[in-house]
């Protein structure tokens, strides 16, 4: 296991360094395809090993089933994003949006970003997790600013400022948690997650309560939870589309993961009620706040970004209910949302690249320009809005069911209403984009095979996941839910 962890950390760095040395597009393509395949292979092996050995823990590293769920998300998404990047970024060069020299910088930053996300998931120390989460912000900041135009700079500035200040508050909370640990006599294993869980009963509840507020605000900012979500639509809409997919699917999930790790400790100290009410409140607010922006939106990528805020809210609601079913559903929803939203960003990227605009009103008749992409786009929109028989329906249904089953009927009813509104808003825009008459001069367009594969794989998982969940995945999710519940 130790070798696998080292490989998972070293491979992205090596791939990134090699990318910096290359300038020919063909060589870059080969290096990154091979590198990304290798990383994904290593991560999948790691997940398989976890299902065999349950836990792996050393002084600095810690992986269990909860990490495995997130590792799956990161492994799948970095692979599809690389696959999609290959033709997408080359076309950006051809269209003159970026110079050929910037291509190698793109891949170097991309791999640095993967490295940071993988390290979030495999370190077993809340302090190091903080370092890694801040690392993801910094690695992705220059990717958000990648086009270096006015809008991209604005988005990147807000992204770094808001997330760094937010994450500073999380550090404040983490320091307070360490203080609680030190006064309880556990200073030897500073902020080690396992050690903290072990001595949870001796921590001072009042101190931990204060710490949790700061930790929730800090990591909640990074996870795009309202009202700290303001950076998210800007960053997601201005980044190159493969990066938008990664930000929304993988990065937000990583931030939630760290929040969950902290919640597990806090629950063990002060009981579940206090963190659960806070989570329910923040989650409900996130779903609510996304509504007006989804209903009246002009930018297709911002539309998808606000849908991410909504889904992070739904996941947080699931975590807030805190029953085994709700936690299971929330974890499943993280995976489902990551697959669906990354696919949607790839498709939106393909469409906006052809139409040369992100304005929804100017995109018409995609079905006659790119029939397959348009079909998949509408299917994925159906999936992300929670229609059966797709995977998101299953997890969303379970979360809302558990809301009703646990005296949160009002919140559940409100969420259902809001989801119906979001369904209406997103369907309206996507159908208008999909059908209608394409602008004059737009003929049939062939989409490159790697991009098609990336979108096809994600769409296939969307559809298959609604009908069938492999027993292995089910058991990993069950175990992970047990860990979140403190088992």
């Amino acid at each position: 296991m130790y070798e696998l962890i080292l490989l998972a950390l070293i491979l992205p760095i090596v791939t990134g360094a090699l990318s910096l040395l290359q300038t020919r597009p063909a060589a870059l393509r080969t290096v990154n395809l091979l590198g990304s395949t290798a990383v994904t292979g290593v991560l999948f092996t790691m997940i398989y090993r976890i299902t065999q050995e349950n836990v792996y823990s050393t002084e600095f590293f810690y992986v269990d089933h909860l990490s495995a769920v997130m590792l799956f998300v990161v492994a799948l998404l970095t692979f599809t994003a690389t696959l999609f990047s290959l033709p997408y970024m080359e076309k950006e060069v051809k269209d003159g949006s970026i110079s050929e020299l910037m291509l190698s910088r793109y891949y170097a930053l991309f791999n640095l970003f993967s490295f940071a996300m993988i390290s979030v998931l495999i370190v077993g120390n809340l302090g190091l997790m903080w370092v890694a989460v801040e690392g993801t912000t910094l690695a992705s900041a220059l990717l958000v600013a990648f086009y270096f135009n006015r809008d991209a700079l604005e988005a990147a500035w807000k992204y770094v400022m808001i997330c760094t200040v937010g994450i500073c508050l999380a550090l404040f909370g983490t320091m307070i948690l360490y203080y609680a640990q030190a006064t309880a006599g556990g200073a030897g294993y500073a902020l080690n997650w396992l050690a903290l869980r072990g001595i949870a009963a001796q921590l001072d509840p009042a101190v931990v309560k204060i710490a949790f507020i700061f930790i929730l605000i800090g990591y909640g900012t990074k996870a795009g939870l309202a009202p700290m979500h303001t950076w998210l639509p800007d960053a997601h809409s201005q980044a190159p589309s493969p990066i938008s997919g990664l930000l929304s699917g993988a990065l937000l999930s990583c931030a939630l993961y760290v929040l969950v790790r902290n919640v597990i400790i806090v629950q063990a100290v002060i009981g579940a009620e206090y963190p659960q009410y806070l989570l329910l409140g923040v989650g409900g607010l996130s779903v609510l706040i996304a509504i007006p922006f989804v209903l009246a939106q002009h930018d297709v990528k911002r539309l998808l970004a606000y849908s991410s805020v909504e889904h992070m809210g739904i996941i947080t609601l699931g975590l807030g209910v805190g029953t085994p079913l709700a936690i299971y559903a929330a974890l499943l929803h993280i995976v489902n949302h990551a697959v669906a939203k990354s696919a949607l960003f790839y498709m939106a990227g393909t469409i906006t690249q052809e139409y040369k605009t992100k304005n929804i009103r100017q995109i018409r008749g995609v079905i006659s320009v790119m029939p397959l992409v348009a079909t998949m786009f509408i299917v994925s929109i159906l999936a992300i809005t929670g229609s059966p028989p797709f995977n998101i329906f299953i997890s969303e249904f379970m979360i809302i069911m558990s809301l009703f089953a646990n005296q949160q009927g009002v919140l559940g009813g409100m969420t259902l209403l809001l989801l119906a509104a979001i369904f209406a808003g997103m369907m309206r825009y996507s159908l208008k984009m999909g059908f209608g008459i394409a602008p004059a001069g737009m003929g049939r367009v062939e989409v490159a095979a790697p991009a098609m594969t990336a979108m096809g794989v994600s769409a296939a998982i969307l559809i298959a996941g609604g009908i069938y969940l492999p027993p292995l995945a089910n058991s990993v999710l069950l175990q992970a839910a047990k860990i979140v519940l403190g088992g």
Partner: protein
Amino acid sequence: MELLTILLLLAAILQTRVSNLRLAINIVLVQSVIVAMACVIIGIQTHEVHMFIAALLTSAIKVGIIPFALYRLLPYLHEEREIVGREIVKANFSTFMTLLSIILSYGLISPNLPGVAVASTLPAAVSLTLIGLFFIMMRRQAVMQIIGLITMENGLYLFGLSITQGLPLIIEMGIFLDVLVAVVVLVILTYRLKLSLESTDTSLLKKLKG
């Protein structure tokens, strides 16, 4: 130690009156020097090698590289300065908030918390963090916001130092690395802002909405 704390807060109050970018960087540099000196003093008191390494890292990164990067940025930003004169009320408000956060921190934090390493600097650390936060919110110049972020980070660092004698070294090194990279990224962004907007006034950044 008490003298250092007073100097630190004095520097923070002074910072709210400054509109010249170079002067602001000088002040934040002094602030970082004081934090490094606090590390050394705690190191001498507790005989922990860890503290001396932390002092060294603080001097190298926050007194050395970060101000250097900011000074390097200045020639590109000629004529850029924080507009305080026009909105003197805002500067006064900023000073007021700074004083308020100092009073609140000293008023609300009990000096008798159990197990605190250095109780005397704890309120100063909390107020420095708050001052940094207010500074980011009040100022519009990109460089000023970076300085606010460094102030906030200094406050956090001092907080860790006074409450638990700092975090374990490996985590602290990670934090230093993050701060360094954050400032470098922000300096790159500021430079690019100047290139494409011909200004580093962040209040111009309000195009993305809805």
